[in-house]
């Protein structure tokens, strides 16, 4: 079937089988391999992208189901050479070791801050509970998201 998905504001058109998962449709697009394909069972959260602003697990959504919706991937965080506060937070506070969970964690964090600009540690932990990180013990991820919340205004102004 012919699909035309909106990914990071661009039209991505391709013929695929109806059974193609959104994560593969995204990753088969040149330049969009930042979304990671992890457990394939909606447990690990590495494949999280935003669909109409809400985090979803792209391994458990058919590409066909995403047509007509706004998809945002980790590549959309950086704008005109300026990193998103979430990305700066992850960098500053060393919130990744191997980096496999990072795209999903950052997209989940972005959606959280868009909805709740000043989340408590508890709210952050609940929000990212759909993501699994085997390296960091989550401590630095939580701290990075807090950092992003605290620096959202100032880092945005610098753009």
């Amino acid at each position, binding site marked *: *079937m012919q699909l035309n998905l909106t990914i990071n504001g661009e039209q991505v058109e391709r013929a695929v*089988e*109806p*059974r*193609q*998962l959104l994560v*593969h449709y995204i990753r088969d697009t040149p330049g969009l391999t930042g979304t990671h394909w992890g457990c*394939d*069972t*909606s*447990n690990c*959260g590495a494949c*999280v992208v935003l*669909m109409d602003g*809400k*985090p*979803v*697990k792209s391994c*458990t*959504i*058919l590409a*066909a*189901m995403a*047509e*007509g919706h706004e998809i945002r991937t980790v590549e959309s965080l950086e704008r005109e050479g300026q990193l998103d506060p979430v990305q700066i937070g992850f960098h500053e506070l060393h919130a990744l070791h191997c980096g496999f969970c990072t795209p999903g964690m950052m997209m*989940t964090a972005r959606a959280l801050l868009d909805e709740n600009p000043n989340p408590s540690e508890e709210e952050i932990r*609940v*929000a990212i*509970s*759909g*993501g699994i990180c085997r390296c960091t013990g989550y401590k630095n991820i939580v701290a990075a998201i807090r950092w992003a919340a605290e620096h959202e205004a100032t880092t945005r102004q610098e753009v």
Partner: protein
Amino acid sequence: MVQTPAPFEYERATSVEGAIASLKQRGSEARIIAGGHSLLPMMKLRLANPEYLIDINDLDELSYIREEAGEIRIGALTRHVELLESELLARHYPVFRDAERVIADPVVRNRGTIGGSLCQADAAEDLSAVCSAVKAKVVIRGPDGERVIAMDEFHIGPYMTAVGDGEILTEVRLPLRPGSGSAHEKVERRAGDWAIAAASVAVWIDGGTIADVGLALSAVGPTTIHVTRAEELLRGSSPSEELFAQAGEIASADCSPVPDGRGPVDYKRHLAGVLAKRALRRATARALHQEA
């Protein structure tokens, strides 16, 4: 290992009637897909092999939580996150918020729906027990119109429901009756996991006695376990710790868990009893506005 479903045809429904017409035409080869967070994993594992998928995610007419005709009515396409955040639901049936806090994780809850959860008919799923406890009714629509059935008639076996070929679950109805309190208690291995065991309770208190009660268990039998023997004990009695303990013992005895990676049978029976007791205690406190 590449986990991709077997091939199928895909249709995006634009109306409930259209979805029903497609279901009727395709018979048992067709399945409805909503959130897809139960069906797609089953399809990847070849435990479900529909040849025709009808995507109902565009049917906004099936997405609502509203008060109508002495009931709360929930559209089948209402997502877990909406059930979690609904103040109307929390006010009348806090059991939903209890359960939704521990169903999967927030990202999955953005997609999964109440209709999908109930139609999946997985014995470990929480909302089936919740709906059973609150004595919900479900609306099933087919080519010849609607029928309304009780939750007890809805699940007819593991992964099997009363929804027939050519039919679709459209709505869940919760009766609004005075003096109600409700609660859900669950133990899981880690955040977002399926229950090792869970208990859902709704009570209706009138003049200090339990006028009516619903008690249902998740994950401790081939289907959701409706503990009717405990309900008979509780109905007409004054709420007390001893009574709740007795009801818990019945819940332990009347469930039929199997041993698996989540625990042995005696542990699951123990949990069923303890969680039933806790849910009864909390539901009653809520009915009497005594919750700490």
